[in-house]
């Protein structure tokens, strides 16, 4: 029993109070609420492995379907829609919106489907039994969702390059692009986690997807600048958090946006914190995961 199986994070075996042969009492070692230990690393790796093993379905398919959007919409609408007073071509305008839409949808899809699948299959016990803290669970699910979202977004961006020309779609402010990709995928990854925990079957998740995620993305200005909308719809767009993510992301590409990007940053930060707090609370109380 004494051969080499070492535990990470300073696991010092502590002798039991009374001598009695057998495995020593093991302690997890110091672990604060906010630290990320080996359980986090393992779960994060597993979650990334999970989607990359079926990359055809989780990466390639969404990239291709997003490309279809570009081809169809830019073909049909390019002569009718003027954006930013004609300073940016329509296809060129469309690309960042589609990239961000892919990032958001796939981040959501990753954490929500992973959760609901392992809940339905009951294999969720494998991550509930080990000493993995709520914060570690949260980070592993959300970060892996972000990786998938950003990977699909990157794929969409690359595949659209030949259609709009590299010169037209290289970001002017890459840091803004990065900031909104990270923030937006974090929000949707977290929302997917919340939806996955809350849903008891695939139908519930479909409700989330069809009545919240889809309408909010389509009404967020992916395909148009909100300034082209009638006043009522324009005003309504300001209540759609997706609008800020897409608008800010687009600012990174063109240095042009419907509203000040700092305002978008504030909105994104607010939602990251709010949804993060909800998800952490759900995990800490074991809501729908532990009876």
């Amino acid at each position, binding site marked *: 029993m004494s051969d080499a199986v070492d535990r990470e994070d300073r696991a010092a075996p502590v002798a*039991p109070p009374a001598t009695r042969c057998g495995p020593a*009492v093991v302690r997890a070692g110091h672990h604060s609420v906010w630290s990320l230990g080996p359980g986090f690393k*393992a779960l994060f790796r*597993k979650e990334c492995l999970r989607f990359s093993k079926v990359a055809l379905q989780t990466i390639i398919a969404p990239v291709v379907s997003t490309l279809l959007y570009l081809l169809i919409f830019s073909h049909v609408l390019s002569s009718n829609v003027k954006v930013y007073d004609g300073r940016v071509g329509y296809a060129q305008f469309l690309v960042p919106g589609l990239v961000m839409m892919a990032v958001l949808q796939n981040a959501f899809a990753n954490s929500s489907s992973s959760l609901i699948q392992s809940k339905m299959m009951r294999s969720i016990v494998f991550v509930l039994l*080990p*000493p993995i803290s709520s914060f570690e669970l949260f980070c592993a699910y959300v970060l892996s969702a972000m990786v998938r979202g950003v990977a699909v977004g990157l794929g969409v961006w690359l595949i659209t390059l030949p259609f709009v020309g590299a010169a037209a779609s290289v970001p002017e402010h890459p840091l803004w692009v990065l900031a909104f990709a990270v923030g937006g995928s974090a929000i949707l990854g977290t929302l997917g986690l919340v939806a996955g925990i809350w849903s008891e079957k695939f139908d519930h998740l479909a409700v989330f997807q069809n009545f919240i995620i889809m309408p909010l993305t389509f009404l967020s200005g992916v395909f148009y600048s909100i300034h082209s909308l009638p006043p009522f719809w324009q005003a309504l767009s300001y209540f759609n958090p997706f609008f800020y993510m897409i608008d800010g992301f687009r600012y990174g590409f063109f240095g042009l946006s419907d509203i000040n990007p700092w305002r978008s940053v504030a909105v994104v930060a607010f939602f990251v914190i709010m949804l993060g707090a909800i998800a952490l609370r759900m995990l800490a109380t074991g809501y729908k995961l532990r009876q």
Partner: protein
Amino acid sequence: MKPEPVLAAVEVIDVCKSFPNVRALDHVSLRVEQGEFFALLGPNGAGKTTLISILAGLARADSGQARIMGFDTVAQARDARLSLGVVPQELVFDPFFTVREMLELQASYYGVRGAGAWIDEILHHLDLTDKANTNMRALSGGMKRRVLVGQALVHRPPVIVLDEPTAGVDVELRQNLWTFIKRLNREGHTIILTTHYLEEAEALCQRVAMLKGGRVVALDTTANLLRGASGITVEIAADAVPEAWRGRAAVQATGAFGFTLAGYGELEPLLAAFRESGIAIAEMKLGAADLEQAFLRLTSPTAATAEAA
């Protein structure tokens, strides 16, 4: 000098747990010492799995406490979980991975590094070596169950809880499994098991807790329970039962009549009754006292009240 009290492997103190409409655990207390081989028995719905879920932190008790190796399952959840390996009753698996990947993954969740050799050993003892690179989906039910056993062992927990580990596992592999578990027990691991194969519990476990309706109805050494069940069982295949014995006959699955007798002294009157009423005995089988009898006595609908009185 008085010896220090030995740290219990598992300590359950006055635990209650209700689900909507059901009181699954009703003031359950028990203590399992380090190094014990302990059986948790009871009919379907007795609360065994619920109790295990509370030990594993999969469920939270409404009141009371549970400790694993002295660690509170709620306040010191990380240490408690590190000390515990659980084989769940449900046949769960992750369809994305192979057998070896499942075990490596589980080891990494516990922060165990360099577990390769130990995983090889687990695979060997569970007769899974040639299935190591097979996807979980492609395994039979019994094989999946054995992978679950393996997953509970990857971090070499001092306390191992097996919730019906042999359900659906064939006879030969069941023997191998028990040989392996017995070895782990000899090496100092505390083993707690639930099973509906009572002869397994009888052969393996030093102590038994019987649950019924969420209450502990018996908590004793296997030997004492067997002594309490001193008596014999008789199974008689015949066309009818003599008038006087009708109240004590229980129809078996085979169609034969089963009788539980206080001892061999009662056997002669029983056979005499058959002879006197002219009923021919086609076949007869005698059984010694076993845990099953004790189990039936303690968990039958009339028993609990008698016990309580």
